[in-house]
């Protein structure tokens, strides 16, 4: 399997971004969505918000968002990919970092007190420019980096326990430990993921869902409509 170092310079030329640098410590897991399975039901958003904010409904607070990309539509879930070079953490100007990686659990954490919020926004910008745009803010009530932390603390012993993975009816979210070099994850914007899915699975993506019958060569291709 082709393993390439992640960098912003060759972003366009790389294939799907693969992780080679820091192998996770034993037991650490990543969320690895299979975008081809998503139907756009957004139950992940519902349970994400419930886990982090209690019994309220507001998709803007979800750490995972479903985008409906046209041509299509195709439903594409976007959430933090735990890029091994963490350009978001690198971008955080606060010392010590307000956005940092918990090295034991390998999850991204935000210090809500020290985070400067949407007026800074550099982590979100880095993610949007370089990766998939998985960080946002919700001022004024939640003016800190809203980003997936794998539901850290939700587990029975306080360990991460991603609710999206538990609640997705279609099995989109794989929460697993990659074994050195195995597996890859997207850290791309939704349109790019949709294009890649189209390449691999060839569903139709057209601006126009149907050609005019006056443009069709009805006698062509054997003349059979194909039953």
């Amino acid at each position, binding site marked *: 399997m082709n393993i390439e170092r992640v960098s912003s310079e060759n972003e366009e030329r790389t294939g799907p971004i693969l992780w080679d640098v820091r192998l996770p410590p034993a037991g650490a897991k990543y969320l690895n969505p299979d975008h081809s399975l998503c*139907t*756009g*039901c*957004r*139950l992940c958003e*519902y349970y994400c918000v*419930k886990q982090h904010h209690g*019994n*309220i*409904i*507001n*998709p*803007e*607070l979800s750490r995972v*968002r479903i*985008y*409906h*990309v*046209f*041509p*299509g*539509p*195709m*439903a594409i879930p976007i959430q933090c990919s735990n890029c091994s070079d963490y350009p978001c953490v690198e971008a955080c100007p606060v010392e010590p970092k307000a956005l940092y990686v918990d090295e034991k659990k390998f999850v991204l954490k935000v210090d809500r007190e020290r985070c400067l919020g949407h007026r800074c926004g550099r982590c979100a910008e880095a993610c949007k420019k370089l990766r998939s745009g998985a960080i946002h803010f*919700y001022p004024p009530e939640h003016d800190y980096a809203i980003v997936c932390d794998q539901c850290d603390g939700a587990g029975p012993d306080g360990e991460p326990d991603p609710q999206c993975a538990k609640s997705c*009816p*279609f099995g989109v979210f794989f929460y697993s430990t990659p074994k050195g070099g195995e597996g890859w994850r997207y850290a791309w914007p*939704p*349109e790019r993921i949709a294009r890649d899915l189209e390449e691999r*699975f060839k*569903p*139709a993506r*057209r*601006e*126009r*869902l*149907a*050609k*005019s*019958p*006056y443009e*069709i*060569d*009805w*006698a*062509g*291709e*054997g003349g*059979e*409509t*194909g*039953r």
Partner: protein
Amino acid sequence: MMGGYAGKHLEVDLTDGSFKNVPLDEWAAKTFIGGQGYANWLLWKMTEPGTEPLGPDNLLIVSTGPITGLAGGTDRGDATFKSPLTGLWGNSQFGGFWCSELKFAGYDGIILRGMAENPVFLWVKDDETEVMDARHIWGKGVAETDQIIKEELKDPLVRVLCIGPAGENLCGEASLVQNAQHYAARTGGGAVMGSKNVKAIAVRGTKGMPPLADPDECFRISENDVKTKWSERSMHRRTYRWLKFGPQASHVERADHGIGIFKNFDEGDHPDVPSLGGPRQLRMCRVRDDSCTYCPVGCIHTSLVRSGPMKGSYASPKWDSTANIAQQTSMFDMNGMVYCNAICNDLGMDAEGVGNTVAWAMECYEKGILSREDLDGLDLTWGNVEAEAKLIWKICHREGVGDLLAGGFKHFLPEVGRGSEDFAMQSKGCGFGGYQPYAWHTFGMPYRWGVAYSVNDIGGHHNTASASAYWNNSLTYCSFATGLNDRKKLDLLNAATGYDLTYPEDWNRYGLRFILFARAYNIREGYGGVMPPSEADVLPKKAFKKFTYGAAEGEQMTVEDWLEGRLRWYKDHGCDERGVPTKDALRDLGLEFTIDEMEKAGAWGT
């Protein structure tokens, strides 16, 4: 303020481009709940009898209910207007993602009035509203429209409700479309939007769900809903079939029941039906499954034509759009079925409705009532995919004979005549749904479909005038992939709003109120020019035929059967034998305010 509601509607006057917040009327909300019920009240109050459906005074009301956005199946909207197809109450629902977004933007609904001078689209983002130029999008299909608007507004999370060319061309059966997959298909809402020169309504809402009376209870019930949809019990058979095959699973099943529709309702069973059924569609064409907000069923199954001349066509056919487009016209051709659906999908046309028109035209052609010349040279024989596709295209673009047919049954039947009324499978101008009229309506109602078609307030559609259906349209809640039974729906409503409604007493009471209010509106409008209602709540001759083939062998609904059933329906629903609600029933249900105008329309006079 009651929980669940956003507390206001957005009224847009297209003539001067102004926006106005209309506070929610608490009495009306308690009396009519929301969605269809509340919109009917707005329509009654804000329009005069005799409004021109395609004129500036008609309203297009697209609205949500108090539980919209709360659980799976609640991201549903109701479109209410005066219908250009029937001249009666126009009403249709759609799912997707737009309705919860509208609620999260802080609105219970949008009311369109007037007429814009040039094509526009509306942009609503929380409290900001704007009229945007849509001249560059006018003429585009619904998928391309959604894409262009998302790009132009630079927000991929914008939800778009739009029309296609069929709505722009004011076709009587043009639809409103959400996310290019969800259709408020029937009775021509798309034409009303098109008549106002509105291409789309784009919404973005970031405020989340409005306060709820009892949020913990709401969550408890809606999580139950998710579990029930996936459970072994109750709806599991239906849900499983729909997960696997989509509603198209019903085709073979319905033929086995003898109640399918084939060759313009000629037969109820057919040996070739498996060629169009869900299992075959799964193997040949299915490429994706999609859901609505928070629903784990994923019943939108999208198909792609992979080979042949129609290769590349992309559509999400459902039960009726398959039955009426393909089985109705004897087109046992999977690719052709997907293609014709794709045309309707992209052009924003009601596949179910237009299928009935095409099937009627085919029978006319067979009987020599319409000649090849009448049909612009189309050899409109049964099962001819090319001819059907071209006729549908012409109808959506109002080209040639399409211009005559685009107006709908009430428009072209008087023109064509010559006995073709006998096999025009419609009632009050709206074509039938996908069930044979003789068959029993077994969603729990002891009437035949023919009775239901004849008394339905929008005309001959199968989503009938019933407490269940009208409640679903008002809550709003999907009547399709249901997880909550009626009692639990009311529990969720009470938990969200703080209401104290009882089951079955209030459920039935409100249900009857919704039904009689719709009927009252139709009477006020003159019932399409045919009064009393019993003169218009009728069926074509072909509805009474005797069946001879397969599972339908020996079946028949006689005129006597139908009349008995219809009279029973009238009596069971607070109406007299002329189909007019009694004054007692109206007063008892809090609808006394309708009596004056109904009287003026001659409801109880001779």
